[in-house]
């Protein structure tokens, strides 16, 4: 029983990070109907921002850690907006395939340029926040970094939901996701909304990157690829375009992965994530919380 509960904690901690990443994918897909392959690399850049900023800030301090996270989120938000402006906007309205290929190009570029700039060898991520381990009487262990994941993700999730549901910009985002042309007809500046969405998604990715790096403090330029793919699967699992769905999908996937990892089949873990994707797309393509949309001709 204890083992089950421990694995549960482990799985939730992993799942919340996937949820943060999945939110970025789902928002961009909701508005633009395309998968931002480069999202996983913004995640990586966020982690490296944390690494470099963490050097100028005292370790093990709450204020310092929050400051680093805020700065990383800001840098990545700007990065996301720049990418959208330079690489995706010129192709908007064109073939979806071209944007997809461009996204792959941006992703590869970030990874390989990162390798040149940061070096391919793994770097130790600094302990930004004060870290302690908590043990319950029954022997369950949870680290403060894992708790941090839960808290920060929950805060960001509610923050996002508030922005999308209760602010003008959020309403504009939802409008653009329903129908681009109609939105611009009622006076919404689509370009601004899309830039904002990218910025927001990238900021979330940066937060995810730092939380991930706190728990697995070995960062390298390729660290984003697999978590990114799994986060995408999580977004699809929950229903792409659906914010609570992304969170749910992330948590579920984290749990599945952890339990598989602790079983006999641990060498199949990566494949399991893709297996889940294929099953969902075959059986319930709209995802757990999504609504099925008929393709209009």
């Amino acid at each position, binding site marked *: 029983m204890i083992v089950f509960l421990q694995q549960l904690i482990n799985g939730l901690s992993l799942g919340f990070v996937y949820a943060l990443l999945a939110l970025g994918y789902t928002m961009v897909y909701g508005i633009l109907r395309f998968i931002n392959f480069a999202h996983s690399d913004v995640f990586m850049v966020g982690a490296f921002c944390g690494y470099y900023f963490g050097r100028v800030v005292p370790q093990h301090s709450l204020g310092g850690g929050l400051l680093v996270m805020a700065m990383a989120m800001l840098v990545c938000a700007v990065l996301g907006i720049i990418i959208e402006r330079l690489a995706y906007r010129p192709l908007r309205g064109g073939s979806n395939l071209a944007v997809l290929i461009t996204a792959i190009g941006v992703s590869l570029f970030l990874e390989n340029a990162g390798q040149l700039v940061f070096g391919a060898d*793994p770097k130790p991520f600094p302990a930004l926040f004060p870290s302690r381990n908590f043990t319950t009487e029954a022997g369950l262990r949870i680290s403060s970094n894992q708790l941090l994941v839960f808290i920060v993700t929950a805060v960001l999730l509610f923050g996002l939901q508030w922005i999308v549901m209760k602010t003008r910009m959020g309403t504009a985002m939802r409008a653009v996701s329903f129908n681009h042309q109609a939105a611009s007809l009622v006076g919404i500046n689509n370009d601004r909304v899309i830039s904002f969405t990218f910025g927001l998604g990238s900021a979330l990715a940066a937060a995810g990157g730092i939380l991930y790096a706190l728990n697995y403090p*070995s960062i390298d330029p390729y660290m984003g690829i697999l978590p990114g793919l799994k986060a995408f699967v999580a977004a699809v699992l929950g229903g792409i375009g659906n914010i609570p769905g992304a969170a749910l999908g992330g948590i579920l996937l984290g749990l599945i992965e*952890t339990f598989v*990892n*602790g079983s006999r089949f641990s*060498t199949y873990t*990566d494949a399991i994530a893709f297996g889940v994707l294929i099953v969902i797309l075959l059986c319930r393509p709209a995802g757990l919380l999504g609504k099925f949309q008929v393709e209009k001709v």
Partner: protein
Amino acid sequence: MRIRTRSIAAGLLCASLLAGCNKSNEPSSGASGGDVIKVGEFASLTGKEADFGQSSHDGTALAIDELNASGGVLGKKLQLLTEDDQSKQGESKTIARKLISRDGVVAMLGEVASGRSLEAAPVCQESKIPQISPSSTNPKVTEIGDYIFRICFTDPQQGKVLAQFALGTLKAHRMAVLTDAATPYSVGLATYFKDAFTAAGGQIVAEQKYSSGDKDFNAQLTAIKAANPEALFVPGYYTEVCLIGRQAHDLGLTVPLFGGDGWESPQLISIGGDALDGDYFSTHFSPEEKNPAVEKFVHDFQAKFGMVPDAMAALGYDSAMLLADAMKRAGSSDGPKVRDALAATKDFPGITGKITIDAERNAKKALVIIQIKGGKFQLVQKIAPE
């Protein structure tokens, strides 16, 4: 469309035919012509296992410099041609091919990782170029052919010694094993260890697997903790071991961890922090050894590179030195003659120990057990071969 396709295909064929014919008119490569002896080296200078390749290369380069400073070999200077395989699979074969047929090297030094040695070995064997691997421990490497040698111990030996260490020094009879199922080295070492351990009366209470590149081992470690082992054997590479150490510590798994020579890297401290304090690993060399030759090597290496040499550097150094010695004994840099001289090596005084090449072209070498204490590597034991 069809037309274009055809003409391109035809054009390519002609161009390559011409190019190929041109090349075959040049003198055949195999150059001990001129006044240099070309020695090839391939290593993982960049990429995930860059630490290994850089160390190994530094040691080799130091040896070559020393040899040239004292007059070279057979009256000629040694020229080291190094290529980077980027820690990637698939590059080593082409690199070996290029070094041999285009650059005309007479011998090959490389590699640290058994997987990459295995890639290049068939090329060297086919071209009758002797290859010395400084630190590949998987037995399959030297089985490729009689031109392939190694100067380090093999995994069966390492597994046996570690099993005895676990039972004798750690006094652990209930063992858990956490293997990297995606790396030949790890899978091999795990198997040999388990065989030796159970044959000597130990019990494996838990076995878990991960894949190199993984970051999260909490699931596997939780399962291992539940089985209540007395020690945990992790025969993987440093890139994952540092995280495994931290997560084990966080989960409250307090039993000692230990592993093989894949652990050796400063990253164990820089990323692992003090989570790995008190844990052990086996390797080929310790710079702390009280031995004039070792002390001189450590001193020279530090003077040239500004850091203390590790096992890979020491083995890189020994591989180049042994090659030069074999050439001197053979009286020539010709492939087959050097090969024979290598095979006949007896008690060569390497700084990693006396090197005698046996019938399988392996070396019987001593193992060194290192303990991580206070952020440093400390020599604990040196275990002689049987």
